[in-house]
Structures are given as structure tokens and as C-alpha cells.
């Protein structure tokens, strides 16, 4: 495998192959109740405690669309810069399975609620646009549990009927890394919008990954394989890497690739065939006669549009313009809505005379390190945005040095203490009284007369020695700038 710049290519002998990837992301709509029933959607509830007669498909039960879920889908469409279809149709996708009580899934086939859109990815070498083919609403199925009993399969219908958004990308992705950035971006947009919590551990976000390969430079798409239901970014990357190499090997051996559905085995790190094109289900899609076509007015869409919060791309632009951040810094800070919120709160609390650079460094440096170590989300940060702002201000106005600030920060971790109080209680205030410092320096020069002479004779390196001595004598609290000035004068 070779990487020219950021290009991801698979090499065999003299041939180089490009990987073409498209994703079908299933994002669970953030909603208290299901797509066509009033049952709750809480994660982790006791099996079969969030199931209505509609979800369990009792005779004569009928679906009624949940308007909130429709709004969520449209908001997501707006976030994906996509065309909102004023008329969409729910279809039945027919197949038999024990955890599919109706014997069909209500989905949208020909006329989805959201059409073409795009997502911008921030890659190390610039931005990349990924096309969105469509977004449609559909029901989730229940869960079959095979490992509780050797003889029987149990079915939990809590998920049955939960609203999902299937977001289909165009085959615009070219590497596992791009897939990772794409998923994170989608997740970020939906979390900004509050339309999906993006929690992959709980299955709120999962994807079917379509992979094909082609000779570098070729314009034609190769035969694709679909890897079903991958539920982490890491597994997606591993699966793509394995699958792309498998396909390249087949081509190199002169064999053809079968269009098929495959499963990724996370333990063996390989994909294997689930069903071939010939065995593909015939889902017999047709418009659900229990539901009229879904029609939304221009006003309905406009009202949602007017209430869309600032999204990552716009926030990034604003951070760069308003706070003079670098694109890199801005990208990090907007990547997650909670990080952005934290940062903006710090900015607000710093008041007028603020040092933006310093604040960014403290958040992305010290704070992120702590969160990483303790495996915490920023929303669980042991240091509040308010107190971090005070700390940054204490550095900025010279009350404490950057070095002392690290000590203060350590102390803040215990119970989110006010740094001002820590500085006062521990007497960590920086010494900035010139007279006191002059006296201190006089004493040091006096104690180290020989070195002072050497310095005067041209051994300039010794300047650092004197600074060090002064800092040591002050217990680290001396204002380094003043020390420098006074030393230069006295020596």
C-alpha cells in the first residue's frame, strides 16, 4: 500500500487501485416516541416494555405518522444542504422475520422526504465535498436474541417501529480515513441539530458500507459489495481495508467480483458473504395504503429552516473571522457541539480583555489531555467553562505565570475550584513588585559574583542561570518579564 500525499491507493506489482466507497447511514431519530406509534424509545429499557399494539402489528392496528419525526428528518435535510421534498411517500418493504411483526418495514422507496445534498469534509489537505443522494424515514425492526437459550430465539420489540433516517451518500469517498471524517461530520451536524444523538455504542448510528475498487485513473465504477450493519468507525475502516484488498486480489488473480451482501466479522477482521445477488430478497415495495402521501407546505419547511441553529461549517467560519482562530483550531473546536458550546462559554466569561489564543491552547491542550486520560466527554468536564475562563484571565493579566497556572489547574480538577481562590489560598500570586524583585536580584548577583563577571566578559549563556536562580528564589512566582528586564539592567 502506498500513500502519495493523502491519496489512498492499493498497489499490487505495477498496478494501483483506487477504492470507491458509498455509505448508507442509519441514524436513529432523536424522538421520545416512535415513527408511527406513541411508544417510548428509551435505550436500555426492559425487553418488550416499550411496545404498543401498533408496534406488535396486532390485527386492525394502523400507523399514524409522528410529526416530530418528520420535522427531525427535514431539519437534518436542511443541515445536509439538501432538497426537501414537499411530497414523499411511505412504502412497504415486505419480508418475513421474527423481529418484524408486520411482515413489512414501512420505509420510503421512490419518493424520499429529502433529496440531493452535500457535506463538506475538512481534510488535512483541504476541503472535500461528499454528495448526499437522499435521506428517507423508515421504521427500525425489533431485536432477535439468539444467545439466551440453546433452543429458542427471543424477540425484543422495544426497537420495533423506532424512527430511523437512512442517509445515502454518493460514491464519493475514497479512503477509510475519509469515511471516518464523513461519519464524524454527519454525527456532528445531527448533534448540532438535535436530530440524532449519534451514539454508536447504543446503535443510534450504524452504516451499510458499499465498497468497490478500480484501476487508478479509471472513470468506471467496479462491482460493489455491500457490508451490512457496521456499528463503529473503527470497524468501518477495518472492513473497508479488508474488503478493498480482497477485491484487488480477485482482480489480480483474473477473477471477477460478485455483487453481494457481506458481513464484517470483527473478531477475525474479515468480511464474508451473506447472500449473493441471486439470493437477494424481493422486497415487493409498494406504497403503504394505510398512509397517505406525506405533504409538507413551504411554510412548514421555512419555519424549520428559520429555527436551525448555527451549524459546524458556519460556526467554523465565524470562529475564524470573529476570534481570529486558525482553520485548524476552528475545525477542532466546532467538531462537536458540546466542545463548541464550552469554548463559547469560556470566551463569554473571559470578558473584554481576552486572550483567545491562550484560551484555545488551554482547552485543546491541558483540558483535552485530562478528558482523554479520564475518558470523559466535555459535557462531563471536571473544570467548568467559567473557571477555565478565570484561569486564562489570571495568566493574561499577569496574576500568575503559565507555569503556576498548570499547578492551579491541577488543583481545580478537584471539585471545580475557583482558580482565584486557589491562587489566594496557596499564595501563588505572581511577584510583580519591581522593588522587591530588585532586592531579590541584587542578592543573587551578590551571591554569584564570579558568574556575573563571566557574563559581563561575554558568556551570555549565563543569563539563563540568573533567571533560573531568581525564579527559584521567588518560589516560581516572580514575574518572568520583570526578572528579565531587571537582570539586563543590573548585569
Amino acid at each position, binding site marked *: 500500500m502506498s500513500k502519495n500525499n493523502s491519496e489512498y491507493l492499493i498497489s499490487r506489482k505495477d498496478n494501483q487501485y483506487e477504492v470507491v466507497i458509498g455509505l448508507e447511514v442509519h441514524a436513529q431519530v432523536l424522538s421520545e416516541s416512535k415513527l408511527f406509534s406513541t411508544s417510548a424509545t428509551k435505550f436500555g429499557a426492559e425487553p418488550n416494555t416499550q411496545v404498543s399494539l401498533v408496534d406488535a402489528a*396486532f390485527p*386492525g392496528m394502523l400507523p399514524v405518522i409522528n410529526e416530530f419525526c418528520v420535522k427531525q428528518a427535514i431539519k437534518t435535510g436542511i443541515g445536509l444542504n439538501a432538497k426537501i421534498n414537499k411530497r414523499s411517500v411511505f412504502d412497504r418493504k415486505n419480508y418475513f422475520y421474527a423481529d418484524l*411483526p408486520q411482515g413489512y418495514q414501512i420505509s420510503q422507496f421512490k419518493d424520499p422526504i429529502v433529496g440531493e445534498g452535500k457535506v463538506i469534509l475538512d481534510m488535512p489537505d483541504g476541503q472535500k465535498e461528499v454528495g448526499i443522494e437522499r435521506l428517507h424515514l423508515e421504521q427500525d425492526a425489533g431485536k432477535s436474541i439468539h444467545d439466551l437459550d440453546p433452543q429458542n430465539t427471543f424477540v425484543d420489540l422495544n426497537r420495533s417501529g423506532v424512527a430511523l433516517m437512512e442517509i445515502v451518500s454518493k460514491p464519493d469517498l475514497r479512503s477509510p480515513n475519509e469515511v471516518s471524517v464523513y461519519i464524524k461530520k454527519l454525527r456532528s451536524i445531527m448533534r448540532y441539530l438535535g436530530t440524532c444523538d449519534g451514539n454508536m455504542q447504543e446503535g443510534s448510528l450504524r452504516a451499510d458500507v458499499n465498497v468497490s475498487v478500480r484501476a487508478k485513473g479509471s472513470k468506471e465504477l467496479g462491482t460493489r459489495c455491500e457490508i451490512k450493519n457496521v456499528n463503529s468507525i473503527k470497524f468501518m475502516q477495518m472492513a473497508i481495508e479488508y474488503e478493498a484488498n480482497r477485491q484487488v486480489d480477485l482482480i489480480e488473480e483474473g477473477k471477477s467480483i460478485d455483487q453481494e451482501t457481506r458481513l464484517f466479522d470483527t473478531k477475525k477482521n474479515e468480511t464474508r458473504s451473506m447472500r449473493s445477488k441471486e439470493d437477494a430478497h424481493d422486497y415487493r415495495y409498494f406504497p403503504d*395504503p394505510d398512509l397517505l402521501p406525506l405533504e409538507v407546505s413551504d411554510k412548514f419547511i421555512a419555519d424549520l429552516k428559520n429555527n436551525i441553529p448555527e451549524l459546524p461549517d458556519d460556526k467554523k467560519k465565524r470562529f475564524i473571522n470573529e476570534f481570529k482562530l486558525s482553520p485548524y483550531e476552528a475545525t477542532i473546536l466546532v467538531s462537536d457541539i458540546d466542545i463548541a458550546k464550552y469554548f463559547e462559554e469560556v470566551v463569554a466569561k473571559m470578558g473584554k480583555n481576552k486572550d483567545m489564543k491562550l484560551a484555545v491552547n488551554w482547552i485543546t491542550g491541558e483540558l483535552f489531555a485530562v478528558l482523554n486520560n479520564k475518558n470523559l466527554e466535555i459535557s462531563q468536564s471536571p473544570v467548568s467553562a467559567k473557571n477555565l475562563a478565570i484561569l486564562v484571565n489570571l495568566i493574561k493579566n499577569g496574576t500568575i505565570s503559565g507555569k503556576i497556572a498548570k499547578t492551579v489547574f491541577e488543583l481545580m480538577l478537584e471539585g471545580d475550584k475557583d482558580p482565584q481562590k486557589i491562587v489566594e489560598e496557596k499564595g501563588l500570586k505572581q511577584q510583580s513588585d519591581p522593588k522587591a524583585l530588585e532586592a531579590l536580584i541584587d542578592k543573587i548577583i551578590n551571591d554569584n559574583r564570579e558568574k556575573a563577571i563571566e557574563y559581563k566578559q561575554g558568556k551570555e549563556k549565563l543569563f539563563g542561570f540568573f533567571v533560573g536562580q531568581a525564579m527559584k528564589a521567588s518560589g516560581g512566582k516572580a514575574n518572568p518579564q520583570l526578572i528579565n528586564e531587571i537582570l539586563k539592567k543590573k548585569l
Partner: protein
Amino acid sequence: MSEITNQSLTELVENVKNKKLSSTDITKAFIERSEKSKELNAYITEDFTSALDKAKKFDQKPNLDLKLPGIPMAVKDLFCTKGIKTTAGSKILNNFVPTYESTVTENIWNEGAILLGKLNCDEFAMGSSNETSFFGNVQNPIDKNFVPGGSSGGSASAVAGKLTPITIGTDTGGSIRQPASFTGTVGLKPTYGSCSRYGIVAFASSLDQAGPMAQNVKDCALLQEVISSYDPKDSTSIDFERNHYSKELTNNIKGKKIGIPKEYRVDGMPKEIEELWQKGIQYVKDCGAETIDISLPHTSYALPTYYIVAPAEASSNLARYDGVKYGFRASGENLIDMYEKTRSEGFGAEVQRRIMIGTYVLSSGYYDAYYLKAQKVRNLIKNDFDEAYKKVDAILTPSTPSSAFKIGEKTNDPVSMYLNDIFTVPVNLAGLPGISIPAGHDSKGYPLGLQIIGKAFDEQNILNIAFAMEQKINFKNKIMDWWIK
């Protein structure tokens, strides 16, 4: 006062309101007659003990403001009734007891009526003779070993045989109007969206509609008034202003324009039917209405269209009967084996035939040629009616191409069986209201019906026309109580 079971619903309601009869008197009378009428096989489930209890309770504190005060009523076994077995005429639901009530029956009980029991019907309402029911054939009270029509055969038989003062059926392609015609009773298929489908075992969702079946037009209007309501639990329910059908009922139809569609004169139609139709035309003229010859050019495509659309929807609607959650389950080696055995043993031949047809027409490669084309033709059929209604207020046709036939006569000839619905199916495809009223007898003395088709939401108009015609026709059902021992 005539014998209780001979009274119409309107008379019974009046007698309860005038305190001449108690709910217990009436309920007892219908229970007694039902007990003596087992040979008709109209009931799948009887709920007589509980009905009598409810009647007594009603009489202790009678609410006479209700529209159906203490009136006992048996209903088609396609309506889910809370705590009472609901089978849809199928083995696969033989043990199914709903924990919920259909909106239509809820509306009926809310007006004071009392459930007598659940009436026989074709399995999942698929049939025109009640012969596909898992619970056996239903006898037509007009003569021994004649079918009552279907799928609401038990309902028609129970009303004609006076086992219940009135009832409800469902009509997907003629399942109310054809049995009404076969038994000399009145049956109304309301506009699609008039009566909620919530809690009715689904056959074909875009066609199914509940409606009243009665001895006369006035009773029919009263029950329609009770069962029609907007229901947010059914997304296809329509929120329109509903008439007080019985109160507003009038026989004044002067100046109404009645269309006579030439395409309903089909090949091989018995002369008797043509004559009946001509008589009907004369009746409406006698009532002061005007008849106009019209054309509904796509009529001949209605039956084939129906037999694509209805099975397609049915094949999907019936997928839920898989042995997993409720109903009948056969044991199998694995999941697929269990599915196959459950559905092979649980569904009868006609249901299986329609599931197969429906699955086929929705299959990839056939979808465009069958299902999609059928939807297009369905639109053309609807347009035919829209065009016609620019010129006329209602349309008069025969209800069925023949009178009741013998049990077993058409069992092995599904196409001839399907032809029974030739005049009723277009109405369902267009979502319009249609009413069948008894209009005469054939040479054997069996009843024949005429159908009045209305504009959407224009139930009042066709009830009025039916009401006016009813008085001119003065039909007397020749039922000899042959089954009463």
C-alpha cells in the same frame, strides 16, 4: 305491537324511548330467535349471557337520549371487540381475543347498543358466498342451501333472518352490497374515509370500508349516522362534516339527475336483471327524478384491476399472521418451517390463492406490468365517475348479475365467483358510497337488488333516493323461517 323480532330498528328504538319495550325484552327476543336459528350458522361467537346482563344493567338506568338505547346487535367477526374472540373467519385467528375495540363498534356501544355476538364471514372477507369461512357455510334465510353472499354473509343472513335488528359489515369489493342483494336487505358501503378502519382486521386497506346492513333504508341511515366519524387513529379517515342521515332523510328527490351507465349491461346478464333495472328506472322517474344515459368507459377493467390491487394489499396485510405473536402456530423445525406450516394450515385455499396472486403482482419484474398498471386503470375508473358526476347526482345500476346461488355451485370456479362483484367493485376502486336496496324477485322468488352510487361524501343523497325508491318498490321479503324447528 308486532312481535319484537319483526320490528325494524327504528320501531324498536321508538318503543324503548316510549318505554313500551325494555332492552331486556328486546335482547331476550333476539337471543331466543338466534338460539332457534343455529342451522343458519350465522354466528361464529355468541355472547348472549353477557348481552342479557348488559340489557338488564341498561334497564336499571336507561339513557334514552342515546341513538341505539339498549338495542342488541351482532356484528361481523372482522371487527375487533375487546375481550371477545375475533377470528375474521379464519383458523389462524381462531384463538385471538383482542384487548381493544374497533372505532366503529366503539361508536355503536357508545350509543347504547349491546353486543349479541360475532357473525360469520368469508375468511379475511375474501369471498362472495361465505363459503371460505373456517367456521362453515352460512345459510341464506330465503331458501335452504343457498348462499347468503359474502363476505358479510353471516351479517346479511342474521338481518334477513331477524337474528339481529341491524348489523355492520365491511365492503372491499361488494361484501356489504352483494349479500344485501342476495338476502333482500339494505346495505350501504360508505365513502372511503367515512368510517374508521381502526380495529377492523384488514383485507385491502385502500378499499376496505365498514357499513350498515339493515332491513330498511331508515334503519340504515340511523346506523350510518352512528358509525361514521373522523378518527385520528386511522390516517385515511377523512374529517368532513357528516349529516344527521336519519333525521335529514327525505323521499323528495324531485329533479335529481340519475345516471344510467350503459357499460353495466354486461354479456350474459339474465333478462330478469335487465328488467329489474328498467323497473328501477321507472321508479326513480315516478319519484320525480330524471334519468340520463351515461358512459363509464373503463367499467370492464374494474374487476381485473380489483383482482390485482386487492390481493396485492392483502398479501402484505396478512404477512403479520406468522405464528410468532398471536393466533394459530404450527410447530416447525426452524423459523421458516414454522412460518410455512403455520400459514399453510392456518389459511384456507381462497386466502392462499389471493396471497399468491398479490405476491406475484408485486414481484420485481411484474410490478410495473400489474400493480402499477392497475393503479393507473384505477385512476381512469375514478375519472369516469368524476366525469359522470358533472352531469348527474347519482348512478343507478343492478347490485349483482344474478340472485343467490346454491352452496357449492361456484366453489370450483373462482372466476365465476369473482364475477359476482362486477357491479360493486368499481365503487370501491373509486372510493365512492354505494347502497344496495331490495328491488324485486327473480322467477324463483329470490330477491334482487339495485345499487345507487353517489358522489364522495354524498351518502345523504343516495340514502334519500333509496328511501324514495323503497316506498315505490314496497318490497316484501319472502322468508318462511324454514330453519326454525
